[in-house]
């Protein structure tokens, strides 16, 4: 029994996202004028084993604060789902 954690790390609102800007520009050039805004962040999938759900949640939050997100310029959120034994 284990957990699949999905972590979403996004640039904070107000912080410049040059990558998103460049992709938006390029999508316009490719003929997608409907794209009004693009923000680009990170998506992480972590497989956790041998922990309870509660503990997984607490510890994942710590991982995000410590390493996975740069809290000065990024926000994060995550979801945890059960998976079968790997």
């Amino acid at each position, binding site marked *: 029994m284990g957990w699949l954690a999905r972590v979403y790390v996004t640039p904070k609102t107000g912080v410049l996202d040059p*990558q998103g800007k*460049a*992709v938006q520009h*390029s999508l316009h*050039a490719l003929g997608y004028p409907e794209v009004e805004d693009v923000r680009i962040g990170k998506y992480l999938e972590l497989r956790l084993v041998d922990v309870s759900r509660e503990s997984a949640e607490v510890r994942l939050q710590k991982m995000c604060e410590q390493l996975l997100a740069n809290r000065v310029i990024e926000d994060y959120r995550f979801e945890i789902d059960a998976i079968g034994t790997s």
Partner: protein
Amino acid sequence: MRWAVVTFPGSNDDAQTAYVLEHLLGETVVRAWHKDASVDAVDCIVLPGGFAYGDYLRCGAVARFAPIMRAVERFAAGGGVVLGICNGFQILCEAGLLPGALIRNRELDFLCRRVHVRVEDADTLFTNRCRRGDVLDLPVKHGEGCYVADEATLQALEAGRQIVLRYSDAGGRVTPEANPNGSLGAIAGVRNARGNVFGLMPHPEHACEWLVGGEDGRKIFLSIIAAAGGALDPASAPTSSKVLSGP
């Protein structure tokens, strides 16, 4: 012969490539702009190093849609010679003109250092001035130079003798330590099946002068010139005394 050197917004080695071709090798160079829809009549198009469109999203991902790339695709489809160096290689892979992809270096960091590459095949438009097994001393400078492709593609590359350069040590041995970025099969440069499109991560244009970076890079450009001189237009072959004498 006539060369086109493409400038994308964010290209960094375009001027150096043009300088080497014009001033050190006596070639004719036209500069092509990313917004151009066509390229002058030339014998070879070079996509230079740099960070085209900031290399945002993925290296080369945005650049492949530049108007000039339609012209490059047509040129290649007609058998024209295309050379992609570093970022140029990444663009060619993204554009599907070369197989595979270039991902983040094994050690993750940007890496600027000298490497050795072994010539796997001297019977190409790009390496005919070398011998098989020759080792070239060239610089690399990239963050995403790890060449990957699926198993089938790798086998096809081997079978089709499309792997032109591999990272090696100075003695030509392919070892894990000599591989600067984790590339599969230590691949440093590949050509397409037809043999007219070539991409490599090392920078021959930064190794064409004794004073700055050595001279091994000349062999790549001189091979293209020699091939063009033979196949395309013998009259324009350079008089090699000028070409070969370094400072």
